[in-house]
């Protein structure tokens, strides 16, 4: 029986029929999605922190409203994704508890500090750029609620990348000091952005199953290559240099060759030893704990109003 269900499930996937929350699914499919979607949601929420750092210090009002809107979008993206993950049978509070205990991961890139205003440019351009590469194929993921959430996310990401690139462009057309700031931000964010696509294909054990289930449509290395190929001309327009001595056009492949990623650094940051891991997690835990009284008060208020409403109805009925 189990075998038949799984075969029927795979057949639906192969025919590009979306899976919806109450449909039968293999337990491992459910768990894989739950892990991926909740981690994605956590990344959006933790991702607000590095940029939130610069809202009060944005150089002018135009930059400030744009950055505020962007950070608010990240909150929205986190909420779309939590809502999709909840359809798989885990509560919001359970997911948050996993984030706060360190059991659930989020994207490592957010464990790097934002040292200058130029980092707002580099994050929008590179980090959101890499996220878009990853996310566009997810709009066709086999699980309906995830795919629909990703469509909403992708519609909004384009603004994020353009606002970031515009910050870089303005700095690069400014004083030599401003251009140096942009170069410095590129130097610090390039490699962490490259790592956002995850381990190399031959070192990514879960990819095959996710591909078979059509959760994943392109391999990590394919997406990374795409990212390099579009980023090189974008850096050229800015007139700044990608910090990779091995970066060069390969005529035969029709792609740029690039240097080796420092996977030791990646593994260290994933393991919790990045520059800001502790700070990021503490900010989330503090927000949760300091907000407890607000959550409780809102429930108490709703209950009181409900009770008052019932009393009025009873009086009227009597």
């Amino acid at each position, binding site marked *: 029986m189990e075998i038949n269900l799984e075969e029927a499930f795979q057949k639906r996937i192969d025919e590009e029929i979306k899976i*919806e929350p*109450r*449909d*039968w699914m293999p337990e491992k499919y459910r768990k894989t999605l739950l892990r991926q979607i909740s981690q994605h949601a956590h990344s959006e929420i933790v991702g607000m922190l590095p940029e939130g750092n610069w809202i009060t210090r944005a150089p002018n009002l135009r930059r400030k409203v744009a950055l505020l*809107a962007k950070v*608010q*979008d990240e909150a*929205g993206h986190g*909420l*779309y994704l939590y*809502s*999709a993950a*909840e359809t798989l049978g885990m*509560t*919001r*509070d359970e997911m948050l508890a996993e984030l706060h205990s360190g059991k659930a991961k989020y994207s490592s890139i957010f464990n790097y500090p934002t040292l200058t205003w130029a980092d707002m440019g580099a994050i929008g351009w590179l980090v959101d750029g890499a996220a878009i590469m990853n996310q566009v194929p997810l709009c066709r993921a086999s699980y309906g*609620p995830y795919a*629909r*959430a990703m469509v*909403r996310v992708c519609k*909004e990401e384009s603004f994020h990348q353009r606002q970031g690139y515009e910050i870089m462009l303005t700095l690069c057309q400014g004083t030599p000091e401003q251009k140096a700031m942009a170069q410095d931000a590129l130097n610090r964010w390039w490699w962490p952005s490259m790592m956002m696509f995850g381990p190399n294909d031959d070192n990514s054990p879960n990819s095959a199953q996710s591909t078979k289930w059509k959760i994943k449509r392109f391999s990590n290395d394919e997406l990374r290559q795409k990212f390099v190929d579009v980023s090189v001309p974008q850096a050229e327009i800015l007139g700044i240099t990608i910090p990779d001595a091995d970066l060069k056009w390969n005529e035969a492949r029709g792609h740029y060759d690039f240097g080796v990623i420092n996977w030791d650094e990646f593994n260290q940051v994933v393991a919790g030893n990045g520059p800001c891991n502790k700070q990021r997690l503490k900010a989330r835990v503090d927000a949760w*704990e300091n907000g*407890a009284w607000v*959550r*409780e008060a*809102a*429930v108490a*208020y*709703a209950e009181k*109003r*409900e009770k008052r409403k019932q009393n009025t109805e009873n009086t009227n009925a009597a």
Partner: protein
Amino acid sequence: MSNKEWPLWEVFIRAKQGLNHKHVGSLHAADVKMAIENARDVYTRRMEGVSIWVVESKNLHASEPSEQEEFFDPANDKIYRHPTFYILPEELNHM
């Protein structure tokens, strides 16, 4: 510090006058007022709607996916309900 989780609400948005409300996702809120305001902030940041419905998820009832085939079977063999079932002369043009 035990927290009672806020109830889950399903959100439906009317994109513009003349269209029906369409399900867009869900969110948590303590009461209906908060649910509608949160729905505005989460799902209509770029003028995606002119009207919002929220329904507490526990009040939503649905057909059974596992019975999909039997349940929708009655309509399956009634092709005469479709206009293309009727063969008419070509010179009739648009009917």
